[in-house]
Every structure is written in C-alpha cells, then in structure tokens.
C-alpha cells in the first residue's frame, strides 16, 4: 500500500493552490477542510441533489462523487469565486432579486448550474431551464422562483 496522502496542485477561483489530501477524499471534503470553502456541500451524497456542485475546467461536477486527486492540474471555480470585486455575479444577483431560495442549502449548486446553463444556452426556454437544472433538487421547492431567476439572469448576462 502506498502512502495515504499526496499533494495536488490546482487553480482555485483564479489562484494557484496546493493541498495535502488523502486519495479517498472527495473534492467537497478538501475544499471545506483545506480552503474553508463551504458553498459546495454534501447532502444526498449521490450526485443527485447538486448541493455539492463545483466547476472543474469549466464544467459542473458533483463534488461529492469526484475524487479530490482528480483535481490535480485542473481549474476549479466554486460559488465563492463568482463575485468580482465584491459585486455579486449576475446569476447570484438574479437569485437575490427573485428570492429564488428558502433554506439556501441547494442555492450555490443552483447558481453554478445556471452559470453553465447560460454558457450553453444564452437565452434558454423554460423547457431548457427545467431540463438543464433537473439534476438539482430543492426540498423547499423554490423551483418557480429559480426559473424566474434564471430568466432574469439570462437577460442581465447578455445585455
């Protein structure tokens, strides 16, 4: 058996970082422990709810099913990396404006998935929104407000 730990290097929210990790650790565990980034959080632990969403090399992944070791060399963005100079990302602002959350536990994942959605479909239809986000669950069921927030963000991002 090899050493349980290894060092990985990656870019996190635009900054080059290193972390000492165990091979069996997930991305969410490492982001929380090593970097105190708490926006990605484990809930269902099965990649179904989306609470643990992280962008790896520009695509959304479930951080609870992603070995941290695989982040070596990658470019990671978490919800904490979205605001620029203290100003919320338009998607975040749209969620605030539409009150598109209740308990907020799923919100960072919804925000990141929306960011990816708008990159794929700058002017999404309601169907596209529902389908793209269908892998993100909200137990408080703020779904109608989230759909509104996504539409608002689409208007704002691309004006």
């Amino acid at each position, binding site marked *: 058996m090899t050493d349980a730990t290894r060092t990985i290097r990656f870019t996190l929210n635009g900054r080059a970082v290193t972390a000492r990790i165990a091979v069996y650790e997930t991305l969410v565990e490492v982001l929380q422990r090593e970097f105190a980034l708490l926006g990605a959080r484990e*809930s*269902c632990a099965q990649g179904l709810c989306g609470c643990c969403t992280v962008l790896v090399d520009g695509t959304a992944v479930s951080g609870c099913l992603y070995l941290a070791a695989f982040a070596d060399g990658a470019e990671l963005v978490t919800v904490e990396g979205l605001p620029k100079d203290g100003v919320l990302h338009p998607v975040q602002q749209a969620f605030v404006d539409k009150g598109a959350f209740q308990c907020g536990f799923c919100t960072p994942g919804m925000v990141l998935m929306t960011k990816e959605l708008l990159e794929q479909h700058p002017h999404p239809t309601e169907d596209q929104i529902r389908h793209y986000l269908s892998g993100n669950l909200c137990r408080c069921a703020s779904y109608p407000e989230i759909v509104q927030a996504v539409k608002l963000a689409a208007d704002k991002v691309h004006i």
Partner: protein
Amino acid sequence: MRSIGQSVPRLEGHAKVTGSVEYIHHLRLPGMLYGKIHRSALAHARIVSIDASAALALDGVHAVITIQDVLSLVPNPYYGPAFHDQPILAHGKVRHVGEPVAVALAVDPHIAEQAADLIHVEYEPLDAVFDEIEAARPDAPIIHDVLKPAGMFTDLKHLGGRSGTNVALDARVRRGDIAKGFAEADRIFEHTFRTGKVIHATFEPMVSLAEKQGDGITIHTASQSPSFVRAEVSRLLGWAENRVRVRTAFLGGGFGAKLYIKLEALVAVCALLTGKPVRIGLSMDEQFYTITKHGATVRIKTGVTDDGRMIAREVETYWNGGAYADIGPRVTQKSGFTAAGPYDIEHVALDNYAVYTNHPPAGALRGFGISQLVWAYERQADIIAREMGIDPLAFRRKNVLREGRPHATGTVVTDMEIDAVLDLLEKRMDWRRPFDRGTGVIRRGRGLAIGLKACISPTTSVATVLLYGDGSCALHCGTVDMGQASDTAMAQIVSEVLGIQTQSIRVVRPDTDVTPYDMATLGSRSTFHMGNAVRAAAEDVLAQVFHIAATSLDTEVSSLECVDAEVVSSRGARMTLREIMLARFAMQAGTIVGTGSFAPHYKKPDPATGQSPDVTPFWMLGGAGAEIEVDTETGRIEVTKLVNVADVGRALNPASVDRQLTGAAIMQVGFTLFEEMVFSDGQVVNASLADYKIPGFLDVPRDISAGYVEVPHRNGPYGAKGVGETGVFSPSPAIANALYDALGVIVHDLPLTPERVLRAIRQAENRPLGDE
C-alpha cells in the same frame, strides 16, 4: 404601514447566494471527535452482547460508547417530548431497524465510519409488528413494556403505568349523538383511506456538536427547538438549565424533522464522557431511520340527508407512530380533533389512536398530521357529492363551518374566511367553465379540496429587542429560520413599530444563553406567537424611547412618533435614536432592552368528549384546486395546474407567503404522486434519494400559483396567521379528486403511483392487472 405587507428581500439573501451563510453542518471545533452511529439491523430484538474490540483496535478510534457508558452519566436515559420512552442508545433491546446501538468516536470521519462497521452486536430476535391496525390488537407483540408519559403535557398523565398495549394514546371527540345522527341520515358513506410513510429529507442532514465548557456544556445543533433541547438535556443530566447552552444557525430545511431531541442528548453525553468536543452528523440515508411522517389508516363514516347536508360523521384514525412516541401523541390528539374537517356537522365521533410499531419513529412533518386526515375527508366529500348528484364545490358550500358556529370540539369558529377561500378557488379554477375530459388514452380531470388545521396550543414565545448605544437595533428571538424567512418577517415587525429599516435590524441566531424562551419553530406558530412577542418587545422599546424623548423635548409621549430611526414630535421637534441613547446614558453607549411575550388563552379539552370552549388560537384553512392529465395505459398522472389558496389573516411579506404556499404544495405533490418509504421487515428498502424520489423541476406543474385571502385575525400581529403548513393540506385530495373526475376511479391509498392508478383503472374496467 411602513414595512408590513411589503415583499422585503430576505436579510440573509446575500449570504445564501455566496455560500457563506452559517449552517451547523459546517461547524468544526478544535480537537473534536467525529461520531458515527452503529445502527440496529433488526426491527425488534433483545441485545445479547456488544463487541467493540475490533473497532477500538483501529488506529484513530478514541472510544466506542454504548448504553452502559451512558448510564454512568445519565441513570435514566429516556427522553421525548410526549413520552420518556426513547433511550439515548439502545437499552437492552432494539425496537426498529436503524436504532442507534453504539457510537464510534474517532479523529477522522472516515475512521469513525469504518469503526462503526466493525462493532459487532449479537441479538435475540423478537416478533415485530409494522402495521398500525395489527399493532393495536391485543395479541400484537408489545413494543414498550409500560407507557411513560413525559409529564410536560398534563393531558397525557393518565396514561402513566399503562402496560400490555401498543396504543400510546387514545384521544376522542364526541359531539351530539352519533347514533341518532346516522339514524336520521338518508345515506351513509363509509370508506377507509391510508397514507404511507414519507420523510422530510432535509438537505442539511441532521447534525449536532457538543463541547464541555467549565461546569456546563454547549450544544451546537441544527434544531428547530433550542429551548426544548436545553430543558430536556438538563433534565437528563440532572443539571440546572443555565448550565446547558444550545445554539443553532440557519437550518438547511426543517419541516419538523429537527424538533425535540434528535442527536443532541447523544452528542452531549459523548462530549462529557470523552472530555472532547464531539460532532455527529447524519448522512441522507440515516435520516430515513431517524424520524418520519406518520402513516395513517383513516376509517370515515358519514351520514348525509337527501338535500346534501352532512349530519353525522364518525372517524377512527390509527396513527403509525413507529418505535418511539416523539411528538406522535400530540399529532394524534391535536390534529385528530380536526378529523371531521371544516364542516358544520351536528353529530360527530372522532377516535384517534397513537400506535407504537417497529418502524422508525414518526413525528411532525409540515402539517402535523393534518394532510393524512384531509386526504380522507376530502376524498370522501367528492364521492358523496357525486353519489348525491351535487357539484363538489356546491356540496362544500352547503356544509362548511361558518363564522360563529361551533367546531366539533365545541370551540366557536372565528376569524376563518372559508367562503372567501372557496370563492377564490372557484375563480382561479374557472370552475364554471365547461371542462374537456378527453376521450383518448390521455384523460383530463379537475378537483378541489379544502383542509382545516387548529394551530396547536398552548405554547409560549418570548422576545427581546435591544437598542444599542449608537441607536442600532437587534432582535433576540428563538424562532429558527430554516428557510421560511422568519428572520425577515420578525425584523419587519420591529421595523414597523420602531420605524427602523428592516434591512438594518440584526436578528440574532437562536442561542439559549442569549435568546429568550420559545416553545419551538413548528406548526406554523411563529408568525402568530413570536410575531406578537416581537411586536410587544419592540413596543416596550418604543415606550422607553418615547419616555426619554418626551423628557428631552419637553413634550407629551402622545405627540411622538418614530420615523426613519428618528423620534418626531407633532410640533416638529426631532431626536434620532442615537441622540436618545446619548440622552439616556449621558454618553454614546448603553442598551435599552424591550421584552415581550405571548401565550394565547386556551382551555384544555375534556378528556371524555374532547370539548373545549377555546381549543386553538387560530384556525388555518387551505384549499387546493388541481387539473390533471392521466395516461390510462400507464397510470401516470401529470398535474397540469395547481392552485393553492390560503386564509393568511394578513400577509406580512407577500413574496414569502407565496413561496411558502407554493413550496409546501410542491412538497405535497411529491407525497401525493410518488414519495413513500418502502419497508421490508422494518428495513427501509429505498433509504436514499436514488430510490426515494422527491419532486424536481420537471415535476412542478406547468401552471402553479398561490392565492390568499386577507382578513386580519383579531389576535394576530397586524392580523397575521401562520402559513408554513397551509399549502400541504389539500393538494393530495385535490389531485385524487381530479383523477376521480377524469375516470371515476377511487384510489384509497397515497401515493398515487402509476401502478396504483393503473390497477384502479383496470379494476374498474373489469380486467385487473394480475399479481406475479
């Protein structure tokens, strides 16, 4: 009104969209141990031995705690809000699969998990019983040797010492003469409806941490009831309440799951035994073994006259309480007395039985038992209406309980806008419009339903409002914001009284060392109870501020008002709150403290008849209308339109009310169409979100909306009533009534899975789907 009635944005919005909002889930304490629970594999068994040697041999394992360790600290380790029946860890026997038997404590969560797996428990199996009807029979295996009511609720005391039964509580209501009522009825309808077990599935899974501090202990917990946790942990430890500090943060969902004691007693004991901080956080699958909603069997018999008036109703409800009572007996009693529905029925007999079974414990889940009852009485209402040839809406109008009429409990109904709710439902559903039911494979139907809840009583809330030296303001209240936007609503009340901007008011997270007593955040009680307490506390501050200003400005208190953090006299003299503080304390410092409390009046029902002149502080009424499409070849239902209408008294924050109603309705759509815990010998077959599906974006009806009726309640803060649960009352029967409208088929059990619906369709077509 300055702030009340405005859709003020949520105070914590920014923190939630940036991921920085505080949840106990994220708390790590220096030097803490991670606890992982070893759970029972059997539903009912005597524990012969527990062998932790392999777990203890693992590197990084600090201890394995069993009931023997607990007993050294807590000689009587049984807790619960209604009954002291639940041991901190299994004591001699296990009563459900997944019951905590031991805890492995380790420096790392992965090691704790491995250690918990390595604990070996030897059992001697006992006969188990799962069905609530079977469990209530005299020959059923007995789950608890003797009933142990907690004593907090005086109306449960008489049950103490009762043995040889799984019926933890029987609660009855008697009004009129039921035999006479049925004798006078022209038609009698009798049905049995059932609901399965479902769960909250809060996205922030249950989590608690404890740390010993001096001669006290601090418990950080994702709890809806910090005050209760403090009282109960103090009682278990034999300590004064002031040695136990319970604090919480924002909750990633609650819905009733995070009430009373869940992990708190266990984590406290682990911290005291080891001298180290301890964290126990559940995984999603463990939540399935911790607390559920009650499954129920409801037998409902109704006598109707030829002109369509209900004159007699008898309802017998068996509540599947699982292995421990939790708040089940209160659900049984406080919801049970509404089983006749929002109807004016002369002769009523209601019997409710809280039954122990070998399932995981059942407690409160958004609605506190109401939706199980509405499922039965509103399903039956449509059957009666059709049989009598009356339009379902007209049938309800003929029978509803109106202002000034006695409810089945004898309490006279006031401040309930039942006709307005029906009118709004009619309008939103466009009920008079001809409706195309289709002729092909896809059929359409529409239905509606109304449900009634009595807000539980008696309960108390206390709040403190503080004005700091610089004139800024904080609110200390024990209401836990678990997503319902209570912080914002409470701040709006302070804002309304003091004329300070809502956004600038600091709402302090519940912490029993700081925030005053509150019964709990449950049952849609906070807006009404805590709202009144907060208003009183703010008015107390205002009175002090006016007194200081009147002296300083040499004017009468009655000439003053507070606008934009400034006291203004009718003659135009002004003083900012900052200046008030300077005037009062002679320097820019000090604190003005205002307190308020609220406990509604209440009269305990007569145990023999359930009659009380004052059974609830307010009635909650929710109606739903649904349009569906049903695929007659698969049985799959698509809800195409869902309208929820509530009597809210007064919407303090309309956007929040809307979200609460719609969110609750979508949750109930899940409970209606597919959510159900499936058991095999007490094991939950689908204990994960992979197999226990909850509604996602694609399950939300295309046309979903909420509506509300606003007639201020005489005792509510600014007329407001609670609304967090109202949206769950009626969607299930509304959807099933739509199915009945579409095809005439009756499904007695929830959820309406495609298979259940298809079987009903095929049964009606006389070509039943076989069993294989």
